[in-house]
């Protein structure tokens, strides 16, 4: 019995810790953390660097041209604990991802979750956008309904 309680408590504490690994080198005020948008792009570079990682992707525009988008993620020490390494997003790979945009409208933001070809969620997020399990579950439902932005999904729920 004692062992069960000990194991349970350590496991619960571990679960709690996993929710607190976001690492912050600077403030996140430049991101609109309340707006979440989903796009698909092709990896140009995955800069798995300190103090923050950056995911650079080409995203197709309506006219067929590409725009390079830049997304900031967490630091390697945090990401490794979530199973993400410097090889996770290889150049040329197709990634569907959710992000919180830069407030000034430039093509970039804070990365939330990301999915590669296997359709499994990854969480490369830092404090600027929520890429965690609960948000992934919410997005699974929203994506199934065809939504690609939290604004339209929440508006639909409010109707």
């Amino acid at each position, binding site marked *: 019995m004692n062992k069960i309680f000990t194991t349970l408590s350590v496991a619960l504490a571990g679960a709690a810790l996993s929710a607190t690994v976001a690492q912050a080198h600077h*403030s996140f*005020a430049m991101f609109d953390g309340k707006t979440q948008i989903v796009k698909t792009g092709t990896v140009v570079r*995955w800069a798995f660097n300190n103090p923050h990682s950056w995911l650079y992707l080409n995203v197709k525009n309506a006219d067929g041209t*590409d725009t390079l988008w830049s997304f900031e993620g967490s630091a390697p020490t945090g990401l490794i604990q979530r199973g993400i390494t410097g090889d996770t997003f290889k150049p040329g790979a197709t990634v569907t991802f959710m992000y919180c945009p830069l407030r000034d409208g430039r093509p970039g933001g804070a990365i939330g979750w990301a999915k590669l070809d296997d359709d499994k969620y990854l969480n490369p997020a830092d404090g600027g956008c929520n890429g965690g399990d609960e948000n992934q579950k919410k997005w699974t439902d929203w994506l199934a309904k065809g939504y690609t932005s939290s604004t339209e999904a929440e508006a639909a729920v409010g109707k």
Partner: protein
Amino acid sequence: MKIDANLWRLAIAALALSAAPSLSSAQNGGFGAGYGPPLKVIPPPKQFASSEEHYKYLLEQAKGGTKQTLATVPRWDGLWVTAGNTHLSAFITTGNFDGKVIEGVLTPAYEKAYKERWRQQTEEGQVHYDRLGHCEPPGLPRFLLEPYTHEFINLPQESYLINDFGPSIRRVLLGKEHSNLYGTHSWYGDTIGFWDGDKLVLNTKYLYPADFTRWSPMTSNQFETVEIWQLKKYDGGIERLEVQATFYDKYAFVKPVNVVYAFRHATELIKADYRVNHWECDQTSESYLDDKGVTNFHLPGEEGFHDGRGATMFPELPGQTRDPIYNTTLPTATTSAPPATTKGAKP
């Protein structure tokens, strides 16, 4: 008795779970909190006028300190990450972003300045000055709560306290007096220490003035510390390296401030075979303070963007890219061409 112990364990787990959401969203000073029993500040046995007086008292109590050998010196091998602290509770009523500045902890000038910083943080979402935002090192005391990887190497005559943020190394000379041949202050100052059994007692002086952390008061060039480091063991196989710190600052604090910080074994990183690597802010940080004083980023193709994985200053020579495995390219300030990967190119 068993029921009490079990209830205690469940309470700790429940506390950890309840704390997690607020910590992850608020990013307060409690990085890594929730591991082991709640941290408890152990204040000094009496108040001292200076860090030096405090340190000498502890040295006398320890009868000159424990002489360690390679066989006896406590080992804190491996990788460590932060496991919480009571930092913000020393300055903010709730210890979180819903609180207010505790009055009377700071001197009038520093309290006024801190109230403005706290207003910036709570109303605008960020403080206007954060040393890391423009590539200054974390320094001390920020070293104690940075959520990056730490290593602690103890030898009989010295200890090396390492944080991979920067990276930074605090060199601790044991059984020595302070020395300052540079004749100035620095980010990590000068640290001396001694062993008192399994406790490592430190005294640090000659530190730069800076922000304590992003959410904390400023500190002056008279900021000094006394720290007591000890590895503590708890039920459930929990090992926690705890640092009881007393901060002295005659310009910033009305009286010394006591805070406890903690580290835990980085088991996930060890399992992943992680190696601490050298890096510096220039490597990838694209953040800068814009003309409104707000942190922002330079993006590829914009003036000011520096490509941490691009070529060196000698791109005409073969093998000068800093991304030799994938050999990717990004647009630079002088290149307006669209970005492209160079698949198949040899680095």
